């Protein structure tokens, strides 16, 4: 398959190891990955903060960049984020329609129909749960709210994790509870966000896991920031970063896979 990667703005700027892992993983599985360089952001932050007019140019850029998938130039678009996939699927059309851009709204729908969150792409589209990974660590999984409730990815990420050689998956108490990130919520309601984070961090530490994983670097940045502040030693890693790890090229938790300049 020819798969276009939407890296997401936050991972592009802050956590490039996740989209890099997606590239390596999909290539390992025999697929071709394309990265359309005109991409920037899906517009979720603007939409969820209520700045719908300012979201329009951002959304248009996304739709224009990924429009070729609707013409069959690529087979699918993969996004290593549940919330960005959710925004692409459930918000972009609304933003464009409100701006009176009906034709682009239709294009957005066509792109969204071929856009998948990573675990959806692997399990539903590519039909794999065992991606040949090796990761000999104790891991707990936080199902991020948008993956869980907006997309309904269900247990796909856990199925992928269970198939990883050497990985011990430990259940997270109150896993489905929100971590308190909520995008700009973490700033506008910083105290409430911190209270929610505190509880999530407590549950993560309670698992005794070495690694916390999720399908979204935004939530991971939040929980990871709390884990780090608390000096817990638990490492946040994106699902892709675990799935890319093999015996030949193991990924070590906490070791940033920096690329030399």
């Amino acid at each position, binding site marked *: 398959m020819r798969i276009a990667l939407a890296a997401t703005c936050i991972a592009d700027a802050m956590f490039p190891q996740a989209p890099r892992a997606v590239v390596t993983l999909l290539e390992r599985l025999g697929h071709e990955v394309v990265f359309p360089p005109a991409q*920037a952001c899906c517009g979720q*932050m603007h939409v969820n903060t209520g700045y719908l007019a300012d979201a329009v*140019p951002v959304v248009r850029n996304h739709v224009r960049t990924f429009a070729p998938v609707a013409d069959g130039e690529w087979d699918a678009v993969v996004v290593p984020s549940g919330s960005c996939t959710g925004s692409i699927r459930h918000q972009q059309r609304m933003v464009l329609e409100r701006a009176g851009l009906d034709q682009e709204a239709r294009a957005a729908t066509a792109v969204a129909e071929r856009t998948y969150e990573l675990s959806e792409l692997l399990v539903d589209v590519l039909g794999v749960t065992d991606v040949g990974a090796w990761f000999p660590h104790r891991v707990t999984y936080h199902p991020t709210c948008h993956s*869980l409730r907006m997309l309904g990815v269900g247990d796909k990420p856990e199925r992928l994790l269970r198939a990883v050689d050497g990985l011990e998956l430990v259940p997270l108490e109150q896993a489905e509870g929100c971590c308190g990130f*909520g*995008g700009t919520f973490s700033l506008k309601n910083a105290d*409430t966000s*911190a209270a929610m984070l505190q509880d999530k961090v407590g549950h993560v530490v309670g698992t005794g896991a070495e690694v916390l994983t999720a399908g979204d670097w935004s939530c991971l940045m939040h929980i990871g920031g709390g884990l780090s*502040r608390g000096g817990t030693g638990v490492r946040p890693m994106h699902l892709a970063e675990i799935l890319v790890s093999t015996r030949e090229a193991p990924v070590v938790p906490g070791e940033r896979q920096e690329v030399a300049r």
Partner: protein
Amino acid sequence: MSTFLGMPAARGGSAPDAAAPDTLAGVGRPDDPLHWGASFPDAARTALANQQLRRNLGNATSTIRAKRARVVGEVPDWEELRDAGSALKADVLARLPELLEQLERNVTARGGVVHWARDAAEANRIVADLVRAKGTDEVVKVKSMATQEIGLNEALAEDGIAAVETDLAELIVQLADDMPSHILVPAIHRNRTEIRDIFLERMGDAPPDLTDVPRELAMAARAHLRRKFLSAKVAISGANFAVADTGTLAVVESEGNGRMCLTLPETLITVMGIEKLVPTFDDLEVFLQLLPRSSTGERMNPYTSMWTGVTPGDGPQEFHLVLLDNGRTTVLADEAGRSALHCIRCSACLNVCPVYERVGGHAYGSVYPGPIGAILTPQLTGEKSDLPYASTLCGACYEVCPVKIDIPSILVELRAREVELGGAAPDTSDRVWQAAMKAASFAMADGDRFRRAARVPRVLRAISRHGVIRRLPFPGSLWTRSRDLPEPPRQTFHDWWERRARQARQEDER
């Protein structure tokens, strides 16, 4: 409609006797029940600092959450029921004027009197006049959100009429001069010890040796209320449902106190929001399955009282129905937000809300707290509000709502409205957000511009230690006050990809 007697005092916390008398007084009764108190972030901060409150709320909401999940899980056609409930409500809203007139005709034909109230003041005036005409200065009340919303008790008090709340939790709130903090369990923020102290200090006829054992508390309230039921000439209620094609009203409650009010007095006055209609009697079937399981986690509701006009020789011989608008037609006119009027006030969304669970109801500064309050309150008042932002958009509310109100999407719509209102008369914070969002929009609408912007966080590497940044100046401090920020990478993904592509090209050339 619930019998909630407070959580036990926190273990390891204060001793049962330590509830200081000055904490008994509630937040007081505000002028506007839909808008009072500090801003949401500030009120939340105060609430979060109250460890006892957090524990009470955490325990109470997790108990009811589990109970609800269990009984909802038993119903094989739950999703179909939700669809039916949602479709029925959508139909009601689409035909509201016609159905309301049908209801009026049927209530009138069966001996009731229908009154129309545009707003809170009008509704309060109608009720006060009706009560005065009966020559009484004390009425008993069934728990009702509509009368909380319009501040009926305070309005009656100004006319020298004492309204006695008969729902146990509502009575606790009233005695403490407090506001409800939950739409179903209004005293959820109180623990048993506080309730005992409130009874002892303020009920007037509580046994002096009262303890905080739930049964004893209930018995004390029972004796107190029984005297009121037997003497009251007028009762005031809300309504859970009104059936347009029969003129039947329904109240759903757990204690039986509501039924006392609905049957014993000579006159019954019901104040009902105009959206509480269902078209036909059969439609109640859907809602009487959805409501108890969603609200109290019960399979069947204990006391479901229904009445149609006046029945000679049985129950109240005079019945008045006050149909309340108070902002509802404005909500109805808004296509994006109108489904907020589907709400059947089950409170499931409050119980699952991670924000509500931590900050409680008072932080919302409205009689409608939690997720439904965050979408309903600003729509009813039409004022600028910070409530649409009091959510992480986690979607737990939408998942449980028995009438499928897409609360997260409405929150986003209302945020857009806030941005418009803020654009018209911006304060400092509006200006900062506007500027930030404009700049981000510019940077994120183009691949090249974004590629350059994505390199900017790298400057923070200068202040990072051991791979993390612990402290940033404002507004970054809002983040770093309670979380670290990881060190930004040396190379963005855009740059990595380009370099990789270049290397591949070079290899090809070789």
